[in-house]
């Protein structure tokens, strides 16, 4: 298993190189001069623009720029932004906020999605099952930013239960509603998956055996059915961890949260690749890592899985 994990991590190297190069190239290909508009009303002096271009190697060919940049990146030297703020400081401020948001979303998905789906699967075609069906349909068909705006307006402006925007501290309590908003889609998918998985497993032969063994129903379901149903659900949750970080970008914008999403967004607008590339790299790494954890966890959950 250790060797399998190592091999998977090594496989990540070309993926990281490829994606960073792609992002670097896209930033480079954006039209406009990042330094031209930085001096207020007047045009910037030509020697300032030239000096900046030289400092950030923008006068060099793309591959030279990229190699120098990556050489620094692997030494954890993230450099400074065009505003001369250390990139590492910005990331260190924003990362915990986004992580908090993602963890809240993950918790909402796991608890609400799995509980609702399991109950619906156990009582198929009942009242609760119909409720889950309708609410997941709504959750899946309304775009996230509409739900976000609605929550902001309804809970924040109208009812005044929450502050419509999140303060700079971005506490757990403040992030609860935005986290739940990001979670809607996956919660709905998870609930439906849990429902079908439970219903399918209830029909399985080993469940019939469990009943024939004279086990109480609570044990048949709580131990045998649930344990077998967990595998696809955990897989979905784990894979979602990666998308949650990226998905936070939209919601962070609406609730004015100073997380990684907002950081990237603002710097793309300024044509400043210094933040965009490391944050994107971080996203890729988290994604790959989440996948690996899911894969390894899969082996823990299912003894039939082998790693070679």
């Amino acid at each position: 298993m250790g060797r399998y994990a190592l091999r998977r991590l090594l496989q990540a190297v070309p993926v990281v190189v490829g994606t960073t190069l792609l992002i670097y190239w896209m930033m480079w290909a954006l039209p406009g001069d990042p330094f031209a508009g930085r001096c207020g009303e007047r045009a910037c002096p030509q020697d300032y623009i030239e000096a900046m271009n030289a400092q950030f190697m923008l006068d060099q060919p793309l591959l030279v720029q990229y190699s120098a940049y990556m050489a620094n990146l692997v030494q954890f030297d993230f450099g400074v932004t065009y505003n001369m703020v250390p990139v590492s400081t910005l990331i260190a401020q924003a990362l915990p906020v986004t992580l908090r948001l993602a963890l809240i979303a993950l918790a909402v998905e796991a608890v609400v999605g799995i509980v609702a789906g399991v109950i619906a699967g156990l009582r198929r075609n009942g009242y609760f099952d119909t409720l889950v069906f309708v609410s997941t349909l709504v959750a899946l068909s309304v775009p996230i930013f509409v739900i976000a705006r609605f929550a902001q307006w309804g809970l924040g402006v109208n009812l005044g239960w929450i502050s419509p925007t999140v303060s700079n501290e971005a506490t757990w309590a403040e992030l609860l509603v935005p986290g739940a908003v990001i979670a809607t889609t996956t919660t709905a998918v998870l609930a439906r998956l849990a429902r079908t998985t439970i219903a399918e497993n209830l029909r399985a032969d080993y469940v019939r055996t469990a009943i024939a063994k004279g086990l109480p129903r609570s044990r048949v379901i709580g131990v045998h059915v649930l344990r077998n149903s967990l595998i696809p659900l955990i897989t979905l949750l784990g894979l979602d961890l990666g998308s949650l970080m990226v998905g936070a970008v939209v919601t962070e914008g609406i609730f004015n949260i100073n997380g990684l999403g907002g950081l990237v967004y603002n710097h793309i607008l300024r044509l400043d690749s210094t933040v965009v590339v490391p944050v994107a790299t971080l996203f890729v790494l988290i994604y790959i890592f989440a996948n690996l954890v899911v894969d390894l966890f899969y082996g823990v959950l299912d003894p039939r899985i082998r790693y070679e």
Partner: protein
Amino acid sequence: MALNLPDENERPEDRSPLLEVEDLHVEFRTRAGTAEAVNGVSFTVDRGETLAVMGESGSGKSVTAQAVMGILDMPPGAITGGSIRFCGRDLLGMSAEERRRVRGEGVSIIFQDALSALNPLFPVGWQIAEMFRVHRGASRSEANKRAVELMDRVHIPDARRRAGDYPHQFSGGMRQRIMIAMAIALDPGVLIADEPTTALDVTVQAQIMELLAELQEELGMALILITHDLGVVADVADRVAVMYGGRVVEYADVFDAYRRPAHPYTKGLLESIPRLDQVGSDLQAIGGTPPSLMDMPLGCAFHPRCHYRRETCVTTPPPMYTVGPERASACHFYQEVLDDHGDR
């Protein structure tokens, strides 16, 4: 926690048979219609006896077994009539909790496909030990110890070490042994084996049958053996119930049934194999197709395939005629069938 099994010293005339099934009716109500899967099945088995249940697939053997175990899919299944009595107690009338306790303790079952019947995610020892932990409240270590003993008893080599392995790490025969170990864990009165060897290699089939016979001898339980294998029936069964279209069409001592069948269907089954003691032969070689349970033929269900058919067969369903002591046939013309074998 033990069930009220009949006392060995009780006089035979005072006690009811261990398991009595009487006029059992099971229906499946599906969108396509109502299938009368079991249509008035009756039989009894006692301690130490083996009852073989034979019949083409779809004749209601498994559904009967599931009804006895209380593991029918309900819905779509429903028991619409009859009674099932275990040690004189009506299984269909008791509470869900009482019924649960009979499963495993009083009546156990093993299935055709042990791989899918075992939970893939738990070690086999754990799955056996679960019987002791749930029914007897045994501690984890005590239950594990008993599980290893049982694995030893069903001749799984290196039982202590293998108890931690998962079902997929065993061969088909070993998996069926594990199922058997689980089923006999609580020393049940009745063991139902629903085609226990159909999915196995011929040599392994024989070993499993040997094991079942050996355990039955040791434990003195009643064995209901559902099988396609006529050779096995001849070897191990005391009595045989031949099923057709959800009914028992012939019920007899194995020796009598084989020597002189009293029903054309039994006769057809026996003639479909060249020699009775041949292992691994199948029951499929009778002309025609099994009846549709949604649309049973009027009169005798077997009449479209029967060489003895007359007018009466098409209009009047045959009752269960008493052919002799402990012997019955659902054929208007059983005497003719018997007579055809008189010279054997």
